[in-house]
């Protein structure tokens, strides 16, 4: 009798557990799709994470660290190669991914706001660091530029999103202060 009750409770718990996970995935994908569509449709209105702003700020940082370059629209031209800032370079999708993880996760509005507010500057400066690193790499080791750009840093971004999300769950959601 006891086993039957325990088994029943476990089954109910599992059902509830899976429902929570399914809800998270559902809201994550909905949020991701909506923000993604909006970010493409209204790209020029997004502060900081648009192509023009990213190109100009990158150019400013490169000059600050002593790298000589010229800027033409979204293109930054170095002595031996050039880079073009496209939508994927702005970090907007990483912002959308983190924001969607946070919004879909069951927690209070205040904790969600804290999470997104912390994520924005972290992603922005991480992305700028990534672009400066790639520029320096392209100038000095052009043969490995494509590999590092296409693969290594994509993985780093996936990790950053998940690491920040775990950090937020541990430090903000679990703390229960906000």
């Amino acid at each position, binding site marked *: 009798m006891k086993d039957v009750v325990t088994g029943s409770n476990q089954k109910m718990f599992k059902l509830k557990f899976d429902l929570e996970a399914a809800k998270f995935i559902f809201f994550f*994908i909905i949020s991701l799709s909506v923000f993604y569509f909006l970010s493409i449709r209204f790209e020029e209105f997004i502060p900081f994470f648009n192509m023009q702003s990213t190109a100009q700020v990158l150019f400013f940082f490169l000059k600050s660290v002593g790298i000589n370059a010229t800027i033409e629209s979204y293109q930054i031209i170095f002595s031996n190669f050039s880079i073009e800032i496209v939508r994927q370079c702005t970090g907007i999708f990483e912002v959308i991914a983190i924001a*969607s993880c946070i919004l879909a996760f069951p927690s209070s509005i205040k904790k969600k706001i804290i999470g997104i507010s912390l994520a924005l500057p972290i992603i922005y400066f991480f992305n700028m660091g990534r672009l400066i690193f790639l520029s320096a790499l392209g100038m000095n080791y052009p043969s490995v530029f494509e590999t590092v750009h296409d693969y290594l840093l994509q*993985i780093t971004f996936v990790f950053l999103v998940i690491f920040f999300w775990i950090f937020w769950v541990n430090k903000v959601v679990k703390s229960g202060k906000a």
Partner: protein
Amino acid sequence: MGKHDVIYFAVKFSIAAAVLLTIFYFIFPYYRGALRYSIGIFFDITKLQPSNNLFLTSMPYVSLSALIVATPKRTAKEKIMFIILIFALFYIIDISFLIIQILAQGTFIQYYHILVVQDFLTIALPIVFWFLLDYKDLIVYSEK
């Protein structure tokens, strides 16, 4: 996850990603070759013209595999099995989206398709899969 668990997770992920990237660096020509062969069969059947501008996902299987290796769950044997399954799954995803790219050539879908492959499939899909496979426990931490 405690503080040390998170650091341990980060270190394990970095090592796993570095090892898998190195392995895949040597396997990738064969992966591309297998994709090209499969696409070649598709061209033979459909008589469509191949395009030089086809996009692949940027190795989401490596980041997802590294996440699974780094997560303190499952045995080594199960992890290896999952990695093989993930590579097979993303091979099918890459093939499917290559076919959609070929069929969508010259239409407005082509533009969105590139974005979907580079952003959705490369970054969002590993997060969803990892959550489903290994980290549903995160929900336990949430407040209701």
